[in-house]
């Protein structure tokens, strides 16, 4: 028979991954649910997964490509913006959904127990699936343009792609969880999240290539740990992008630090946050 021991003492780094594995069907349930809820009362349904980023990318083509003339390292504009938007929305959605973990699930968390980590994991999973669906269009564009010799992907580096995704997912979850832990105490932070993510977008070479910035600005942009990852992603996918070891290492260090801090804070908050929400 299952034995549960509850103690006032906490183990700060214990993630209870074994328990999370036991609850995998719940993770899957929440993941499926997030799709169902988003497209339940719409006419086009899951097509919005493609239409939405496509329209945004077209807007980018007009705004940044043709009016601001930011340049795309020679990559066809639609492909450049669409692939960039896909990976950025994966990351930013990880952050903002996780940032609302505690506040938006207070009702459920207040009535029933399951490992609270189920929620962040299912958020990342559903964002990953969203990204995967958008990736289908990216691949179609990519093959089309590659056949016409307009883009030369670094095919050999493709096995690295999952690593980039995992790292972005972990970083997004870490940042989001830290914010969410703070929002249980200070509600005004949740208002800042949307604004912060917009700022972060412009500090990241998503709608422009890093090469468009001059040396000083580039150094500044590389402080942003997402920058190096986006450039790596672009190198893999499109065969362009600036690859330097130092920013990549910084990005890894940042991810690790954020993940550890996230776990630490999450474990502390999840035990008693329901008393303060």
């Amino acid at each position: 028979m299952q034995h549960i021991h509850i103690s006032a003492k906490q183990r700060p780094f214990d993630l209870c991954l074994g328990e999370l594995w036991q609850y995998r069907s719940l993770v899957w349930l929440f993941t499926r649910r997030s799709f169902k809820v988003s497209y339940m009362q719409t006419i086009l349904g899951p097509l919005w997964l493609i239409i939405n980023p496509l329209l945004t990318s077209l807007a980018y083509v007009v705004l940044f490509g043709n009016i601001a003339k930011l340049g795309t390292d020679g990559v066809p504009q639609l492909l450049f913006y669409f692939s960039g938007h896909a990976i950025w929305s994966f990351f930013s959605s990880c952050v903002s959904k996780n940032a609302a973990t505690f506040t938006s699930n207070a009702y459920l968390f207040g009535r029933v127990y399951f490992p609270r980590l189920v929620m962040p994991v299912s958020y990342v999973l559903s964002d990953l699936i969203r990204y995967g669906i958008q990736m289908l269009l990216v691949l179609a564009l990519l093959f089309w343009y590659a056949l016409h010799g307009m883009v030369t992907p670094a095919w050999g580096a493709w096995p690295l792609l999952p690593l980039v995704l995992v790292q972005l997912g972990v970083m997004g979850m870490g940042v989001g969880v830290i914010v969410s832990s703070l929002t249980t105490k200070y509600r005004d932070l949740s208002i800042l999240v949307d604004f912060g993510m917009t700022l972060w977008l412009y500090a990241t070479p998503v709608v422009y290539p890093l090469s468009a910035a001059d040396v000083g600005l580039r150094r500044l942009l590389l402080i942003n740990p997402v920058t190096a990852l986006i450039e790596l992603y672009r190198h893999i996918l499109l065969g362009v992008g600036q690859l330097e070891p130092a920013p990549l290492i910084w990005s890894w260090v940042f991810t690790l630090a954020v993940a550890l801090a996230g776990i630490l804070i999450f474990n502390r908050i999840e035990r008693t946050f329901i008393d303060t929400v």
Partner: protein
Amino acid sequence: MDEQELALRIRGVRKQYRLGVIDRRTLQAELQSRWALWRGREDPNRRIGSAEPVNRSFWALDGIDLDIRRGERVGIIGANGAGKSTLLKLICRITAPTAGEIDIWGRVSSMLEVGTGFHREMTGRENIYMNGSILGMSRDEIDSRLEEIIDFSELRAFIDTPVKRYSSGMFVKLAFSVAAHLSSEIMIMDEVLAVGDMAFQQKCLERMRRAADEEGRTVLYVSHNMSTIRQLCDRCVVLDHGRVIFDGDTERAIASYLDLSLGENEVDMDLREKSHQNTGAETGLRMTRLCLEGRVNAVYASGEPLCMRLSLTLTKPAPPLHFRLTLRTEADVGLATAWSKPFSIEGTGDRTVRLTLPTDTLAKGCFYASIGVYRSDEIGRMFPLDHLSRAFKFEISGAPVWNTDAHGFLRLPELKAE
């Protein structure tokens, strides 16, 4: 005790809550206060005139030790704020204790407050699956119980509707069905039956009893409704101010809980200290003591007569006395008054009168009783010699199918149908 028999072991559990608003502050206010304190100024966010710091704390649970064996049906009673819900929350792992340890053998399905762990956007059916997954059941296991759950909930027509559109009664029905039929070893029910209709209440109580007796599951049940506690529980724990003050036989637990809420001596009351409406000095009559005859508690079954012994002190010869008993409901609404026939007492000194009130008309509920001694004039007007409001409280534990909200407190004489 042998660990094999235990379902739950609680050792030295304490839970602290903070009073005040510190945790709902905005970041700005927090920074403001810190800045002011750092500069040695007064905290601008403190209430003027409040000397105490904002973040006072209190112990919702203050050292709980409890062993519950497998298959027991344990009731948990106590006044509001005694710590009942906090205890259940800790056992369900909704929140963590501040000190102490809890061991649970088996899976816990719970229904806390109204509604259980339901996702409001999901349909009834999906919520059944979600709750099953939460208990670690596989899809096949849940499938095998789905029909049973839907049948019990009486909600077949609405099972594919999102639960956010459910009425509170439907919510409770589904929540109970889910908690009662999923395979858990321990069932925790908090005030579950307050919303459902009477027939469903009885069905739930029966189901919980069966879960314990036939399936060997452990039931923890919190309620303010003593008659459902009586029906269901074979053991009862009384909490008061975060401590266990009684643990054992249900009847005695209920009695000790009622003692707690009524004052120490609710069956034998010294009336001299209580505030009389008429001082009685010049009327020459004063009630001194009231005793509920042959009782250990003031809980009566419906139809059981209320027998009282009232002691009086007379300092001068009294006219024929009219005794009066007035009942008010718990919500302090006047309900009914009973008068005695004129009763003559010879001489002066201490006397004891026996008063008996049939309670056939009282269906169910808690009542405050005022008691008085009156004299009448020639045209039948009554004048108090001594009167005491809310002298005591008693409960009529009527049939559970009597719903005082719908039916009232009194049972009128039989309705003749011809």
